[in-house]
């Protein structure tokens, strides 16, 4: 039988090719997903161990669950047992550096004294020495326009002791840049500024930094790491216990233990903790790959079905000469197995090639990533794709194999009448598909009904139950729909076909052809349907989510941008001591700057808020603060959601909740507001979140009454929806810098514009990637369309020849195939879009909660239109090759050759 299978395969090679390509693409997809997973793991592992530089041992403090706790710095000395040559603790400091071009708050650390422990190796100059030298990461130096030998002002906070009632101070000193480093490989707070150990220790004391994520050790030559590990662990553990007992007497020892291991061991142990997110990603990738494989299985099953139909006479002949049904089925399965093996091997090779190429490209684009040099073929990465490809092809061959055993030997004798194929789908199938659709619909309904409505619930586990119900419901619904495709798709084909038939004889023939074998049309269209449903659902879901999330963001972040003067805006005071002297000064934004900023392109509306120092007295306590005045009309145009200002009226003052709490002012309480000129107003307190935009707000009229010439204290802006917020932000920063104000008077930028843009971009990126991955399924399905068409061409050779003899021109013959391809693609695309949009809508409802009333079905007509148009165009393209083959066949030849 093997010889027979090989011989028939050789004859049917071309016909098997399309199915094989489909399987190969799906296999390549799986291979890439697995390889990618492997590469990401190794990249993380590489960077995890790179942060320890060339350390011999690492001291960590781990909870029983494997989480890292920081080590007290004062225990560092304990690690210096005999045999340890050097010892480094990468604690994190914050420094503000003022370069010629800009000021920046930067993460800083000490540069290890021992070069083997330095996680950011020097590329230029030398390590910081003494108490006036500093080393910068090269990119940071660039950004601040600093070079080797330059002097830079470095400021750090001197944090007040916890109990002391005094504010933090700032201490500034000039440093000289002594060296530049490569990017810091440390994963916990990578630093861009490095200090000498002495300076680091002094600043750490000022900033009250008391711990470090780990200690790294270099051992003396000839020391035994294993033996020293235990000694160090014991010594450090003792020191830590001692320190904590001193600091928190009676707290009892923490359940975290000190462990000492090699950097590789530490990295491997931490990998699992780091991989959580990536697992999800790999899972998603594999889910998409599984979808691609499912589509490929539809294509290949179709191919085998047609091949069996074509070989009916041959198979019958085999039966006549003594082959039993088992042998016939075996030969078909053997053929499926060989096809599966060959195409999955090809797909695996393709996947490896793409993986390696992508790795090389990624390495070139971002040399900082600790990428491995090449892909690594673990058993899983090659067994899984090959096995998946093989099994899917075999499974797809099962039904055709059974079909082959049903060919009766007599079929070899009589002339073969192309009988009408039986309509697919029995009662059982109908019942199953209806049942699944109903169960799925109920699942979706339940998910919608129970979907959590508040963000608070989102953080609890209850949020995920409806989500999972919804996902399962959607999956069951879709399976039922696809299972029943043979009942509704042919109806749809018939309905749409009726309209198309009128357009000419070619179209009429094409429509008749799609109807004559509903089973095959259904299978072909289904393969495409799966892809289109998922792409449509994904793009509609993303668009709707984006809009709904924007609605939520409008509430949470009503203001895009605020330019505000920074000043102490609040001083608490005793009610017994009347305030006779105002301690607050209100810095102002110069009018020229305000005008220049407001004139920027990216801004569509602005409001200026004057501020003045006032005293505010309630029944219990009084305070001095900067009161802002807002014009409700102007602010309404700027704010995306004006709920914040809804309580603002002629007789109210808006008070931030934290101020109300601190001063013990109640909602509705009468407050006496007194301005610098002594004028007074009686206003009702309205406690409302001001989103960090100030402490107290009144209407503009009230403010002018208190302080007629109050300077502009804040500027509010609304950004254009289509603009680039980062660019606008940069523009504003530049204008502010150019204004040449004292650093105390420099207004700061605040607002949610950038965060909003990040959300949008994140959603767009995720959706684009998902759609790209799903598009693979569509490509495979289109190979399926081409496959079905060319099989049809082969099958209908005689018929096409007859039509040509009767007067069908070459163009009409080609057009016939094109219409057939377009028609199948259109039916699949249109129904796929309808189903996909429906599912997306439910999905968005479940994710955001229906009760919020904000589930907006946003259809992205461009994207959906492109999907449908793309599918239809591809259907037309898929008909090119088969169409050419029809047109090429000379009518006489096809009429005379009686092909088996």
């Amino acid at each position, binding site marked *: 039988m093997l010889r027979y299978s090989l011989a028939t395969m050789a004859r049917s090679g071309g016909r098997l090719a399309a199915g094989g390509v489909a399987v190969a693409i799906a296999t390549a997809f799986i291979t890439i997903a697995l390889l990618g997973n492997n590469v990401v793991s190794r990249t993380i592992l590489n960077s995890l161990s790179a942060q320890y530089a060339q350390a011999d041992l690492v001291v960590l403090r781990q909870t029983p669950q494997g989480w890292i706790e920081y080590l007290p710095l004062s225990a560092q000395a304990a690690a210096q047992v005999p045999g340890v040559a050097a010892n480094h603790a990468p604690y994190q400091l914050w420094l503000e550096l003022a370069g010629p071009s800009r000021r920046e708050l930067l993460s800083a650390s000490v540069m290890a004294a021992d070069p083997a422990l330095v996680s950011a190796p020097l590329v230029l100059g030398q390590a910081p020495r003494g108490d006036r030298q500093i080393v910068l990461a090269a990119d940071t130096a660039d950004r601040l326009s600093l070079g080797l030998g330059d002097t830079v002002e470095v400021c750090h906070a001197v944090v007040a002791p916890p109990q002391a009632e005094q504010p933090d101070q700032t201490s500034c000193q000039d440093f000289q840049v002594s060296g530049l480093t490569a990017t810091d490989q440390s994963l916990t707070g990578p630093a861009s500024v490095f200090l000498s150990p002495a300076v680091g220790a002094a600043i750490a004391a000022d900033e009250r930094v008391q711990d470090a994520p780990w200690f790294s050790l270099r051992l003396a030559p000839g020391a035994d790491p294993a033996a020293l590990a235990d000694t160090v662990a014991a010594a450090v553990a003792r020191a830590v216990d001692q320190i904590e007992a001193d600091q928190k007497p009676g707290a009892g020892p923490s359940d975290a233990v000190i462990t000492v291991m090699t950097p590789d061991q530490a990295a491997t142990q931490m990998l699992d903790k780091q991989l959580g997110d990536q697992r999800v990603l790999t899972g998603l990738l594999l889910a998409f790959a599984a979808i691609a494989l499912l589509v490929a299985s539809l294509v290949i099953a179709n191919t085998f079905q047609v091949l069996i139909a074509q070989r009916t006479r041959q198979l019958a002949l085999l039966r006549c000469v003594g082959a039993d049904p088992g042998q016939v089925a075996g030969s078909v399965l053997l053929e499926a197995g060989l096809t599966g093996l060959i195409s999955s091997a090809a797909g695996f090779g393709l996947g490896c090639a793409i993986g390696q190429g992508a790795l090389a490209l990624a390495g070139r684009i971002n040399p900082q990533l600790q990428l491995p040099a090449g892909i690594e073929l673990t058993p899983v990465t090659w067994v899984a794709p090959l096995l998946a490809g093989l099994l899917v092809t075999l499974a797809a061959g099962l039904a055709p194999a059974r079909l082959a055993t049903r060919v009766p030997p007599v079929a070899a004798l009589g002339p073969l*009448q192309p*009988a009408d194929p039986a309509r697919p789908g029995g009662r059982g199938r109908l019942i199953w598909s209806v049942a699944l659709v109903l169960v799925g619909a109920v699942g979706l309904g339940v998910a919608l009904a129970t979907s959590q409505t508040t963000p608070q619930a989102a953080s609890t586990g209850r949020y995920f139950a409806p989500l999972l119900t919804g996902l399962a419901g959607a999956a069951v619904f879709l399976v039922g729909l696809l299972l029943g495709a043979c009942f509704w798709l042919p109806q749809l084909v018939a309905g749409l076909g009726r309209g198309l038939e009128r357009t000419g004889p070619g179209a009429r023939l094409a429509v008749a052809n799609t109807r004559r074998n509903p089973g095959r049309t259904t299978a072909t269209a289904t393969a495409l349907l799966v892809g289109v449903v998922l792409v449509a659902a994904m793009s509609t879901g993303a668009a709707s989510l984006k809009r709904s999330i924007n609605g939520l963001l409008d509430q949470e972040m009503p203001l895009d941008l605020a330019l505000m003067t920074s000043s102490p805006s609040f001083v608490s005071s005793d009610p017994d001591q009347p305030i006779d002297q105002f301690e607050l000064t209100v810095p102002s934004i110069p009018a020229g700057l305000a005008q220049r900023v407001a004139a920027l392109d990216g801004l569509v509306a602005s409001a200026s808020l004057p501020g003045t120092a006032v005293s505010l007295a309630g029944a219990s306590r009084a305070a001095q603060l900067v009161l802002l005045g807002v014009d409700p009309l102007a602010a309404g145009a700027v704010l995306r959601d004006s709920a914040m200002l809804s309580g603002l009226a002629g007789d109210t003052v808006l008070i931030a909740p934290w101020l109300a709490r601190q001063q013990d002012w109640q909602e509705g309480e009468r407050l006496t507001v007194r301005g610098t000129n002594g004028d007074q107003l009686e206003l009702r307190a309205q406690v409302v979140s001001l989103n960090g935009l100030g402490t107290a707000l009144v209407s503009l009229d009230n403010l002018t009454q208190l302080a007629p010439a109050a300077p502009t204290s804040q500027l509010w802006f609304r950004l254009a929806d289509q603009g680039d917020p980062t660019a606008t932000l940069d523009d504003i920063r530049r204008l502010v810098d150019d204004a040449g104000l004292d650093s105390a008077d420099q207004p700061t930028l605040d607002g949610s514009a950038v965060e909003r843009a990040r959300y949008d971009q994140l959603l767009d990126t995720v959706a684009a990637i998902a759609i790209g991955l799903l598009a693979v399924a569509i490509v495979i399905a289109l190979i399926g369309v081409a496959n079905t068409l060319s099989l049809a061409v082969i099958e209908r050779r005689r018929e096409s020849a007859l039509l*040509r*003899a009767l*007067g*069908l*021109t070459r163009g*009409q013959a080609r057009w016939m195939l094109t219409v057939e391809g377009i028609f199948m693609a259109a039916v699949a695309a249109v129904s796929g879009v309808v189903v996909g949009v429906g599912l997306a809508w439910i999905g968005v409802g479940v994710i955001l909660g229906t009760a919020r009333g904000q589930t907006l079905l946003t259809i992205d007509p461009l994207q959906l239109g492109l999907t449908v148009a793309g599918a239809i165009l591809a259907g037309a393209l898929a008909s090119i090759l088969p169409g050419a083959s029809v047109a090429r066949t000379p009518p*006489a030849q096809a*009429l005379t050759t009686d092909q088996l």
Partner: protein
Amino acid sequence: MLTCVEPSTNTGQSIRAIALAKTYGQGDAAVAALRGVDVEFPAGRFSAIMGPSGSGKSTLMHLLAGLDQPKAGQVFLGDRELTGLSDNDLTRLRRDRIGFVFQSYNLLPMFTARQNIMLPLRLAGRAPDLDLFDRLVSDLGLAQRLEHRPSQLSGGQQQRVAIARALITRPAVVFADEPTGNLDRRSSVEVLALLRLAVDQLGQTVVMVTHDPTAATWADQVVLLADGQIAGRLDQPDPTTVLAALDRLGRN
């Protein structure tokens, strides 16, 4: 009956071959199927082509019908030369002026009898000649069978549908390649009578390939083919002369 049908301009033209040659394959495998055939099938007559298997009858018919290109020689339909026409011109010519009847009926399985008959007109985008259609249908006894698919018709019925399909365009020539090859005697007689009727009443030119001497006697003339060449010609054939001529061919 078809008596009242006025002959259309298209109906009944002669078809003529001059030094027609055809070779299949190349080099050693080359088979000379036709080697210099000169023959004329007169307009409005019923001609039969006979000869041993492999003598080139089907090949000759395909060339005459413009289904294939000859190696050398010319074919004329009336005054018009077929050889050298482009594929699209040939297709149009076949569609409008040539009818086919095959041994294996060759109806399209997905169309009903009515759709199969109308197919050539649809392909040409011509308005259906309902008059002719009704007459053909009633003469061929197909009135009750029009909405049936080929798989629901007997062989004789399918062949009658095929004849109706060949005649609906009022072609200049009807070619029939062994139209009775798959039929029993009674159905054969029906089919032959119909072809005869088309010649007598519609003035059609009919060219029929056959192996059956009895079928050949329905024709006005018999052209004998052997080894790709014309081997003789019989006018007003009857069973005895046909058998004698075939006998002679067999002996050579």
